[in-house]
């Protein structure tokens, strides 16, 4: 037979957080790691319930209760700070001599290692705590690297969206792309025509049939515009229902006259949506680069096309007009009332 000291020596190796309590609930022995948690406390003869609060099972209030938990999981907490939580299991000793309780940190191990400055030597070599700490650190490091990557990718995505040249709804070019193309044409001295197209009755479609119908109409409009123009022309959506078409190499109005008629008439073809027919039309105004004396300014040409468009709207919608000197956005009150 082993003596009690020999026995506890063996247990301390395997379970450095063990406790032996007598039948009255007083400590007889405590493992070395457990002692390290309360270095100033004299464990011997101290009452278990003075040191630990049994959190689960809740009905445990006495040594007799504690013995009844044999084999089940115990949740304990130190009464005094740091109030580290511990898990445990109790095995009654023979002949009513009390019990052996083995404790461990459970999930609180991360704080415990820091709070008590524990080292590998404080854990049994078969204990997986060190591996768990390794994993927590390794995963945190990997997670942090992934998080940083996500942040950079998100930043890059926002930048890419800002730089994008495509209108996502219609697949047409956007205003930024239009600006680039105008700059390129002006820079290279290429002749071009600039047509500003504004949809008529689009607001009514949006208001009566909803935004989804409006979106369907815009997509159909985009298709029509691409079909009516050459591959070398640029169709850009520059506002909710405003479009700009740039005709590269065009220096006389004649071809555009016919094209604009065809365009407006094709846009007037009703678009089926959800069992309803969406009817819209369009007004357009055009200017030519050859009508401008160099140096040509993109903003000035956009303004000219805009004035021609307003004149077309005033002339009764579904019309196309070329820019003429003297056109003005006069009577802004009536103009906006009747035209938006």
């Amino acid at each position: 037979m082993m003596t009690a000291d020999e026995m506890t020596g063996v247990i301390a190796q395997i379970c450095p957080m063990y406790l032996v309590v007598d039948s009255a609930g007083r400590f007889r022995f405590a493992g070395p790691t457990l002692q390290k948690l309360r270095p100033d406390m004299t464990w011997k003869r101290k009452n278990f319930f003075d040191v630990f609060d049994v959190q689960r099972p809740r009905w445990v209030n006495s040594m007799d209760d504690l013995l009844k938990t044999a084999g089940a999981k115990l949740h304990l907490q130190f009464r005094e700070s740091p109030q580290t939580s511990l898990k445990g299991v109790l095995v009654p000793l023979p002949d009513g001599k009390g019990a052996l309780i083995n404790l461990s940190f459970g999930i609180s191990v991360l704080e415990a290692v820091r709070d008590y400055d524990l080292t590998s030597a404080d854990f049994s070599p078969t204990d997986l705590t060190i591996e768990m700490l390794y994993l927590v650190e390794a995963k945190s490091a990997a997670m942090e690297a992934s998080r940083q990557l996500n942040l950079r990718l998100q930043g890059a995505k926002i930048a890419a969206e800002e730089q994008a040249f495509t209108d996502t709804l219609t697949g047409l070019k956007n205003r930024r792309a239009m600006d680039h193309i105008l700059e390129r044409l002006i820079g290279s001295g290429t002749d071009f025509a600039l047509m500003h197209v504004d949809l008529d009755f689009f607001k009514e479609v949006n208001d009566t049939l909803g935004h989804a119908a409006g979106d369907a109409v815009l997509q159909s409009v985009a298709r029509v515009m691409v079909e009516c123009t050459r591959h070398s022309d640029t169709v850009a959506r520059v506002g909710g229902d405003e479009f700009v078409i740039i005709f590269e190499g065009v220096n006389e109005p004649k071809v555009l006259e016919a094209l604009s008629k065809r365009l407006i008439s094709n846009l007037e073809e009703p678009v089926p949506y959800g069992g309803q027919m969406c009817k819209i039309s369009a007004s357009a105004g055009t200017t030519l680069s050859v009508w401008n004396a160099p140096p040509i300014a993109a903003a000035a040409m956009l303004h000219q096309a805009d004035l021609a468009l307003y004149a077309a709207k005033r002339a009764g919608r579904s019309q196309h007009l070329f820019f003429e000197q003297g056109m003005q956005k006069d009577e802004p009150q009536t103009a906006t009332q009747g035209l938006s």
Partner: protein
Amino acid sequence: MHGLINRAIQAFVVSTYGEERWNDIMNHADLGFAQFEAMLIYTDEQSNKMLSAVERSLERPLPEILEDTGTFLVSNPQVEALRRLLRFGGVNYVEFLHSLDDLPDRARLAVADLHLPALELVENSPGQFDLICQPGLPGFAHVMMGVLRAMADDYGDLVILDHRGTQDGAEVISVTLVETDFAEGRTFDLGAHAL
């Protein structure tokens, strides 16, 4: 090659030779980007282009550069996380050496798609070891030389390392432990990592 490996070499070059030199190297490598991402995968071709550009720019043999990279990974405070992870391998240098057998598995636990070549430690006599590095990642044995040297410093032990060339396709590093507790090592607190 995993981004972490490319990124490690980038960190070493930037920290030792400066950002400008790295940008130069990446210009020569002509990959279309200047920064490796730790959590992305790159082709071997991309990594090899970078490595040859590094070798040309630094005008040093690649094995030497890789060994310095290994040392950097353990000893530079910038990459403290890796040193800590390696220290979890054992409470002393010999235990650490024995933990190297598990290194590829440990690496995979942390980053599932990081595949390191198998390592095997053979103890010829007390204090005399051979570390056998299986093929799969060219230059890995040289990085390990640097890691082993720096970890010995970390534990405060004095070791002699020798790259013994290739045996049966695997590279062999001989490790001779000359003196334990030769110098004061760096401390290692299990809980020092701020979570």
